């Protein structure tokens, strides 16, 4: 192997060291600002099991051509709304989206790590990492983060959506705080607002038919309505009236943003007024 001058090269070793240690401790100040609804002081024993510490709502639903992801834009710190343009639906590669809930700084680090890990694998090995390989990689990162999460800093609960090109269908996976993954048939949601709307997914699927048979705009309308309900019922989830939610699709052609005109008109119907769409 060609040895480059010191401090360079050996990215594989760097990656594995990052993946096996407790990774991704951002600067403390950064963590506090974007730590979802983490309270500044936690007494020992509090954390993962007892507290909903992932203030947001992100939703993934299947539709006829693939998967739609929507997410609100609010980032909170304690009771303060710190930022209303947070991007919580992020691409890991051309066919994989990760919708994040929980600590924003940790999630961003995980996304940065996975993007590089997936691409590094593909470029160096000359073949793409398998879907199962990618899912395990994400599970491993979450598991390694579990200790920090137990102490109340930086839990991350993602929903991973992808287009399976072999099966020619969209697929949705969600994770628990320990890194275990579960595949869902139709929809997935994460964040503090997701529990309030869980039953509504079932209701829609049973009364209007499965999400995976809907066309894009119908499924998008349902997902955005659910997001708006979550915003009504959860203080840490932002509504669509001020800043438009994020909406992305994954199909056989890859990832695409839902065009703003469509998004705006659906949001207008749902909230019954013209969205401000600041910025």
């Amino acid at each position, binding site marked *: *192997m060609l040895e480059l001058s010191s401090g360079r090269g050996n990215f594989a070793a760097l990656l594995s060291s990052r993946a096996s240690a407790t990774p991704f401790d951002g600067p403390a100040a950064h963590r506090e600002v974007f730590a979802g609804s983490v309270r500044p002081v936690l007494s020992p024993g509090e954390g993962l099991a007892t507290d909903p510490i992932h203030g947001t709502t992100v939703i993934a639903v299947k539709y006829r051509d693939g998967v739609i992801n929507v997410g609100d834009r609010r980032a909170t710190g304690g009771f303060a709304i710190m930022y209303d343009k947070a991007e919580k639906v992020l691409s890991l590669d051309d066919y994989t989206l990760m919708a994040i809930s929980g600590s924003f700084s940790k999630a961003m680090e995980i996304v940065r790590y996975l993007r590089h890990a997936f691409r590094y694998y593909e470029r160096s090995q*000359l073949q793409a990492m398998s879907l199962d390989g990618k899912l395990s990689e994400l599970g491993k990162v979450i598991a390694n983060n579990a200790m920090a999460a137990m102490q109340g800093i930086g839990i991350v609960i993602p929903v991973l959506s992808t287009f399976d090109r072999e099966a020619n269908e969209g697929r949705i996976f969600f994770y628990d705080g320990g890194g275990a993954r579960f595949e869902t048939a139709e929809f997935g949601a994460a964040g503090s607002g997701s529990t309030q709307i869980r039953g509504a997914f079932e209701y829609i699927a049973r009364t209007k038919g499965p999400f995976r048979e809907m066309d894009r705009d119908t499924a998008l309308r349902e997902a955005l309505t659910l997001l708006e309900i979550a915003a009504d019922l959860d203080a840490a989830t932002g509504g669509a009236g001020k800043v438009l939610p994020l909406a992305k699709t994954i199909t056989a052609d890859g990832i695409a943003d839902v065009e703003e005109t469509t998004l705006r008109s659906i949001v207008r119907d749902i909230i019954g007024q013209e969205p401000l769409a600041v910025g």
Partner: protein
Amino acid sequence: MGYSFYDWNNALQQRNEYVADRLKDGSPVVAVTFDGGVLMLTLRGNQRKVFEIYDRLMMGSLGKQSDIESLRLAAIDSAHREGFERSPDDVSVQRLVGFGLSPAVKKIYNDQSSIPLTLRAIFAELGRTANEDHLFVLGFDGEFRTLNRVAVAAGTAYAEDQGEAYVREHLPTTLSEALRVGLTAWGISRSQLAPKSAREEEEFDPLRDDGTDAPRVTDDPAVAVREALKDGATLEAALLQRDTRRETKYRPLTAAETESALSEYR
């Protein structure tokens, strides 16, 4: 026993000849920039020769496969490390080749106890426009050239110049033009390794023993391409695509996309 300047000079020359000899018959790699991105192409046997390095970087190389592989992995490693620790925006071909790869290759070349890397590689970086794309050609001695619009890595410096000169006179704007011009440039760089006068002189040299050399190829670029295809070579072409909404800019061209350019030679 002293080590005279002559010995040193001689050793260096032998190393150069050793590598130059092995590169001479290699299949050239041509990189051309156009409105839609950067195209890199070559005709090859079984082994891949054009590779993605990073978000906006690719490389193509002729030479020994194992040496190409170690250069490729070093480039990928270094680019990803920088992109991960700082930002993908900080990964540039100028830094990668100039400060990373070139000194490392030079070090191996200077080490008298090791065999120099037997390769010539083109590194391409996608910019905003065809004029802002960067092309670097890195040699086995660690020296590199920086070029605009076109770069060729071929068996000899003369062959590279000929191929590049042709493209400069026929600068492409579309992919199909780029493919056509690139293929002709490949043929030129493959077939015109030395000036015609020098080649003729060689033919009259009664002392030259070329009985074991590969058969002399024609200096007609079209014939060179045709013969390579007849010998079972396939066209390998990849793009760094400028106007794509995909995050991956690198894209190998499919057989269907290259067929019309190739059909002229069938």
